[in-house]
């Protein structure tokens, strides 16, 4: 069970170790196991990704406030976790998100506008999972972790692990939250992944809350240790540190691709916003906590580092801000333009091969609609 990178499972009694490469103050620190050299472009890229993704999120939240979306699940505060995890992927990797992985979607090339459909109520996921290697959002908590594990078992059967070919060896990521860790499905996914040594990385964004319930209701020990109970490595990373998240995910994904099996990565972060736009977090948490976490902002620390090291200047920051404005403006415009689906289409999408029953219901529906047109 001892892993060259992840090492042996930490003692239950020991303090949780938080992998960090960039402090909240923007100072670069080093870690014996998870360290990487990042190029200036890479760092600027992370900054840009996070700024744009935050803007995407703010824009969608505003669209909800203006009645254009029925709901929005904000990622505010979780940008580093998602960009770190998303940018560590190779094209052939496959990702199973929850409903909050807008940043990962961004990294997978899903257009932000495509994310709006589900929340606007015009579709239930509008991108092609196979085009982006990014499954549809899953709302039933935990269900997707089993899909990820099964997909990873398929990857094994395709011989796409451990070949040494960097374009072929494939990892799968299962996203989930701290609350989800209590679901039977998630724990069964651990069982299956361990039993078959499947190439899957369980990436848990522990944002401290499951709606109103604090993390402590779900587990009395740090979550990454859950993996040790199932016989595979777990590690806790500073989820507000994009460098650390990237480094840890890269290592975990590489383990999977090499055929060394599953890893649990707990990205320790904080849900800065409400659970969703219908939630009112003032009912259950202290603004003090939120203030404390503001000091750990994922974007500020990268900006501080870039500036301090002369890797970015006002012009760069302004350029990214400008890009965010363009994105925001486009989202507003294109959201308004998102067409409603045609009710008659629901009958032909239920199955690959439509049933006579549904064909009849469709025909009856058509006739029904036509009857109004005649009258009108």
């Amino acid at each position, binding site marked *: 069970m001892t892993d060259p990178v992840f090492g042996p499972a930490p003692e239950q009694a020991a303090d949780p170790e938080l992998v960090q490469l960039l402090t909240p103050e923007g100072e670069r620190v080093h870690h014996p196991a998870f360290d990487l050299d990042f190029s200036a472009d890479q760092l600027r890229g992370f900054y840009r990704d996070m700024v744009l993704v935050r803007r995407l999120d703010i824009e969608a939240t505003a669209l909800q406030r203006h009645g254009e979306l029925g709901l929005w699940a904000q990622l505010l505060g979780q940008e580093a976790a998602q960009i770190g995890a998303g940018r560590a992927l190779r094209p052939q990797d496959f990702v199973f998100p929850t409903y909050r992985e807008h940043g990962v979607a961004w990294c997978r090339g899903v257009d932000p506008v495509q994310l709006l459909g589900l929340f606007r109520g015009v579709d239930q996921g509008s991108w092609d999972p196979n085009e982006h290697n990014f499954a549809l959002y899953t*709302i039933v908590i935990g269900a997707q972790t089993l899909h990820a594990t099964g997909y990873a078992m398929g990857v094994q059967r395709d011989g796409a692990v451990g070949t040494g070919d960097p374009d072929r060896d494939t990892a799968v990521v299962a996203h989930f939250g701290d609350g989800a860790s209590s679901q039977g499905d998630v724990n069964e996914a651990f069982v299956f992944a361990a039993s078959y040594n499947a190439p899957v990385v369980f990436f848990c964004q522990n944002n401290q809350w499951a709606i109103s319930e604090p993390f402590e209701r779900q587990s009395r020990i740090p979550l990454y240790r859950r993996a040790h109970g199932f016989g595979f490595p777990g590690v806790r990373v500073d989820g507000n540190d994009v460098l650390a998240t990237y480094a840890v995910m890269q290592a975990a994904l590489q383990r999977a691709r090499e055929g060394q099996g599953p890893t649990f990565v707990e990205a320790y972060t904080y849900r800065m916003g409400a659970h969703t736009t219908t939630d009112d977090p003032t009912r259950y948490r202290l603004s003090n906590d939120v203030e404390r976490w503001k000091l750990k902002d994922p974007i500020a620390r990268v900006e501080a580092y870039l500036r301090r090291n002369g890797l970015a200047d006002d012009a760069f920051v302004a350029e990214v801000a400008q890009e965010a404005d363009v994105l925001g403006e486009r989202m507003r415009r294109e959201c308004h333009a998102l067409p409603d689906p045609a009710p008659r289409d629901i009958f032909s999408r239920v199955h690959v091969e439509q049933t006579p029953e549904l064909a009849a219901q469709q025909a009856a529906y058509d006739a029904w609609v036509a009857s109004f047109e005649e009258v009108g």
Partner: protein
Amino acid sequence: MTTMTLAKALNAGLRKAMEDDDKVLVMGEDVGTLGGVFRITDGLQKDFGEDRVIDTPLAESGIVGTAVGLAMRGYRPVVEIQFDGFVYPAYDQIVCQVAKLHFRSQGRVHVPMVIRIPFGGGIGAVEHHSESPEAQFVHTPGLKVVACSNPADAYAMIQQAIHSDDPVVFLEPKRLYHSAKADVDESAPPAPLWQSRVVRPGSDVTLVGYGPTVSTCLDAATVAAEEGRSVEVIDLRTLSPLDLVPVQESVRRTGRLVVVHEAHVTLGVGAEVAARVTEECFHSLEAPVLRVGGYDTPYPPARIEDAFLPDLDRVLDAVDRTFAY
């Protein structure tokens, strides 16, 4: 007499039940500090403490399964399932354990628990938040299933369900939580829980609904009356046992019956109503029993849910069609 929304009536009913019997517990996701995502349990944890209003880990099978154990220890757990679409992880516990324990134990084990499920659509929600899973519970022997449709019933029925020594699946029309408002007389003797009820008398055709569709049926009756058609509307209230006595009595007079629910038509509760009423009232029926329900497709995106759900027009159309036979 207090004016209450349906949500407030449920809250008041729960509070009353907890005051009356300290074995009554409330449990579920976010039911404590938050008071539930719909605020049905608002304020209860503050007043009854964390031991009686239990915020649980995020695991529905765990919630229902531990509630079974609590019931076996003598408690009366009232479980909240956050949304209809999230009851399925608990399905095994409900169908194989909750429903069967009394039977298996030859009556020795009692499982007096209530499983509250906000159900139905029409609130513009994302997927899995607008389901109508009742048929599956009605098909399961050992469960009792009721649905409230208005604040007064909500207030009384939740207390009666908690008071029942049998497990009850309690369906709440979430669409009406805050829109349905009425005077509730807390001191009025409640109607029997296991009976359906004529909510508007009529003589030409019978309309049957429950939960959110009762108001649709009443609206249809009003419109039909303007066209000179007298519609009798019945609120089923109890789906298991299914009380069809008033329905049959009605159909013997009207000869025509339309059943309305949001659940998919195929094997929805309407199928059972149709089969039984046809068997009992074969010679009285002038037309086959017609059903208006959700289509046999998954619940669609919110923007088109109005086309999916039974509405006034579809109900009136079905009424018209019963006169075409």
